[in-house]
Each structure stands twice: as structure tokens, then as C-alpha cells.
């Protein structure tokens, strides 16, 4: 059986994130993160093929190799400097990479929209060297000038102990890098089928725009094979619905 070389948005995003994770020895993945989780597993597979053992911890994962409970240990590991990459999202993300997981509107705490809460963001964003922001709905509603509640700030004054912080932002439209010294996002690539104009119109914050913005590279046939044969059954363990929807795959027995 040959596999299709057509790729889905999920496969593009996974591949894009995987490239951002090069050089990480330990990648941790939070709750509700099937695409980052798949990217971490793909990174691990690629590294292993060149003899490098990369560790992946997935909160909620049941396979012992990847399992972590999101309890004290995870945060202690971050404090010890043992986590190299993590993923965060935000109901709102602004141009200084501040993220908001709490709610929309003025008058906190009685905002007009309330979300779950900040989870571990206010700590992990400071402590993990490479934090990749990931958000599927790229619109002026999510990519805002200034967030209504700072769950975790993107940048900190020089005297604040901060070994970690934002590294990139991946959306359904594009890839931004974040320049910590300039405190700004910079557009790195636009996903196939989308344009710089569309990104600009969909983004509520100002960002650096190079003269030439390449297309985000599509997943290679080789990558697609690995994703569908190796990553899919592993990610189906914490994320059965996702694996079924994207790849029609169930968890390995």
C-alpha cells in the first residue's frame, strides 16, 4: 500500500513545529495538545534515526516512556532546567507575546468571557528555554494588540530570573519567530494557500515583516510516512479522537 503524498493542515503544523524543536533533549507537552504532542514524537523519531535519544513527556499519556502526570514533578523539572521545550496557547496572544488564558473584557474578574484559567503558564513560560506558542484560530480576535489579562508575560525586565520564554508562534496561517531582544514577532513563513496580506489582516498586533516571506515547507513524503505509521499510533494513546480523525488510527495495543 502506498500512502498519499497529499498532506493535511495538521500534518503541516506538526512538521513546522518539529523543525522548531531541533536540539531539544527533553520536550514536554501539556494537556489538550495533540498537534504539539505529535510534533514532539516526530522530533524524537527523527533524532533517533541519527542516534540521538530525545525525551518526550506527554501529560495524560499512558505509555510509560512518555507519561507524566503534570503534577509537582513536571514543574520541579522545569525549575531544575530539565525541560528544554514546552507549548503554550492563549485565548488571546499579543505582540509582546503576552498570553491570556483567563478571559475577555474589562473589569476582571467579571469579564464578559471567562475561560478556564492560567494553568502552569505563569511559571513554565519563565522557566522553559524554548516555549512554542500554538493557536489554531488566527484572527484579530485572538491575535490582539494587548491581551485583556496577562496570564504570563512574554518578556520580563532584566533583573527578573527568566531562563525561558517565547520562541515562536505557530497558527493555522503562518509561523512567527519571537525576538526577545526586540520584544517583537517576526513573520517567518506563510502556510501554503495563505498570503502575507491575509496574515496582516488577521493579526491585531504589529510585527516585523521581512521583504521576502517564504512559504512554509510542506511535509516530505518521508515525513508523512513516519507520521502515519509511527507517530499516529503513539499519539492515539492520549488523543484517540485526534488520531482517528486525522489518520484513522487507533492506539497501539
Amino acid at each position, binding site marked *: 500500500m502506498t500512502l498519499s503524498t497529499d498532506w493535511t493542515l495538521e500534518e503541516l503544523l506538526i512538521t513546522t513545529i518539529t523543525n522548531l524543536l531541533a536540539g531539544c533533549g527533553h520536550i514536554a507537552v501539556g494537556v489538550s495538545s495533540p498537534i504539539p504532542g505529535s510534533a514532539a514524537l516526530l522530533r524524537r523519531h527523527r533524532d533517533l534515526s541519527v542516534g540521538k535519544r530525545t525525551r518526550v513527556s506527554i501529560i495524560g499519556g499512558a505509555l510509560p516512556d512518555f507519561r507524566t502526570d503534570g503534577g*509537582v514533578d513536571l514543574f520541579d523539572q522545569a525549575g531544575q532546567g530539565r525541560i528544554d521545550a514546552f507549548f503554550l496557547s492563549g485565548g488571546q496572544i499579543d505582540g509582546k507575546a503576552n498570553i491570556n488564558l*483567563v478571559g475577555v473584557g474589562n473589569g476582571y*474578574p467579571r469579564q464578559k468571557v471567562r475561560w478556564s*484559567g*492560567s*494553568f502552569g503558564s*505563569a511559571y*513554565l513560560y*519563565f522557566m522553559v528555554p524554548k516555549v512554542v506558542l500554538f493557536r489554531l484560530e488566527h484572527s484579530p480576535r485572538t491575535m490582539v494588540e494587548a491581551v485583556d489579562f496577562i496570564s*504570563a508575560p512574554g518578556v520580563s525586565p532584566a533583573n527578573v530570573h527568566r531562563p525561558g520564554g517565547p520562541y515562536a508562534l505557530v497558527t493555522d496561517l503562518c509561523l512567527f519567530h519571537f525576538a526577545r531582544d526586540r520584544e517583537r514577532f517576526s513573520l517567518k513563513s506563510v502556510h501554503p494557500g495563505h498570503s502575507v496580506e491575509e496574515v496582516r489582516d488577521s493579526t491585531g498586533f504589529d510585527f516585523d515583516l521581512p521583504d521576502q516571506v517564504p512559504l512554509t515547507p510542506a511535509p516530505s513524503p518521508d515525513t508523512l510516512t513516519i507520521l502515519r505509521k509511527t507517530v499516529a499510533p503513539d499519539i492515539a494513546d492520549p488523543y484517540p479522537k485526534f488520531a482517528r480523525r486525522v489518520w484513522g488510527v487507533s492506539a497501539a495495543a
Partner: protein
Amino acid sequence: MKDPFLPNVDQLAAEVPDGAKIVVFKAEGGTAAMAATRALIRRAVKGLHVVTAPTSGLQTDILVGAGCVATVETSGVTMGEYGQAPCFNRAVRAGTIRVIDSTCPAVYAGLQAGEKGIPFMPLRGLIGSDIVKYRDDYRIIDNPFAEDDPIVALPAIVPDIALFHVSMADRLGNVYVGRNRELLIMAHAARKTLVTYERLYDGNLLANDELAAATLSDMYVDGLAAAPQGARPYGVLGFYDDDVDQFAAYMTMARTEEGLRAYLDRFVNEAVPAVAAE
């Protein structure tokens, strides 16, 4: 010490006074004492200060919906894959509960300070977050071991009550927590610990070296009640799965206050056990 065993979850719930600061564990269930939570609603407890360690789901949402809660101190209340927490979010927007936003490691660190009997614990991160801005119980202090190095000092969290569900307890009141070691922190930090359990372990958990390594001593356990299927609709690993239909029913009905009231009537209040003559 008195005998900690109680005849049922309603008697256990009676041990939780109005206004208690109560700590519960994790949004993902399994350790959520849901049967005891329904008993709390039946007994119409009022004014709880719920600390979620560090997050919570249906347990906190339904307590809020039933009007049992004054304050929620949390890193996140979420129904996970089922969506946002309807009653919690409604109550925050309406201002009918006080919400104290936190972040996961800060809840753990506060409880660990409670566990150690120290007044506070320092924690990295946090500075510049609106969490700190709105919390008048945090202090930013100078790291005494460095120059110009601000760090957040978190006050100890000492709950009146830790409440959770486990797979097994023994007749002495020892409780097996397994991989959920954070339950030990909760129990150590709290003044009283109330536990429901699936089944009784036949023997002394502390006499079995493998199980003892993950057992909470009865020293910390002030009340226990048997509650088979006591985490439902959450699943308990090795016992039963999430009751997906029940979660769906909740998510549909809890969309409105009226719907929630109907849910409570049907699934909580009607479940009152027959009261034995005393």
C-alpha cells in the same frame, strides 16, 4: 484518635462545615470524590472556599452551580474535552463567586509550605503576570542570596479539609494513593482529610513494602467512607471508565441555571440514600 470509618458518603459530607476551605485534586477525575460531592450538595453546604490542586472540573463546577461555594482558588476549572466549565464561568461573570486566579506550581508550592509548616514558599516565574497584580496575598521579596533579584513569596495554603477518592483503603484507615503523590501533599497540608474509596484492602497497607511506598498513613485520615464508583462520572483506572453520556447530559443541562437545577434534581437530590432509623 477516633474511629475514622463513617457509614456512608452523607455522613462523610456532614464532616465538612459551612465556610470550610477545602482542597480537591485535578480536573481529570479518578481522584475526585464525586459521590461525596453530591452528598455535600444534598446537605446544602454553604460558603466553601475551594482550592483546586491545581485544577478541577465537574467537581468544582457542580458545587458552584449548586450554590455551595463562595470562593474558588484555582489554576483552571475545565471540563477538559467536554468544554468550558459552565457553572464556574457563569458565576465568575455574574460575580456570584469570588475567583482567586493562581498557577499550577504556585498552588503546589503553597500546599507544600503548608505541609512543611513554613509560612511561605518562594517561587520563580509569576512576576509581571496579572495573577500577581490581583493577588494581595502574594509578596515580591528580594532573594536574600543575590543582588537585585526579586522573587515571589507565596503564603502557605492550609486547607481545613482535603477531600479525595482512592482505589483502596485498609481497615486501619491507611489510604493507597499510588502515583498521585500530590494527594500526600494535600493531606499533609490540610487540618483534616476525608477520603472515599472503591474497595477495602485486606491487610495493612503499611505492612506491604511496595504499597507502603505510596500509602497515606491513617495519621492523616480523619474520615473514610466506602464509595464504590465514587468518582463517577469520572473513571477510575482499573475500575471503570468515564461515563461519557453523563458528562454529555451535564454539559447540555448545565448551560442554563434552570437546566442545572433539573440536573441536580434528577442526578443528585433523588440519589438520597434511605436513612436508617437511629
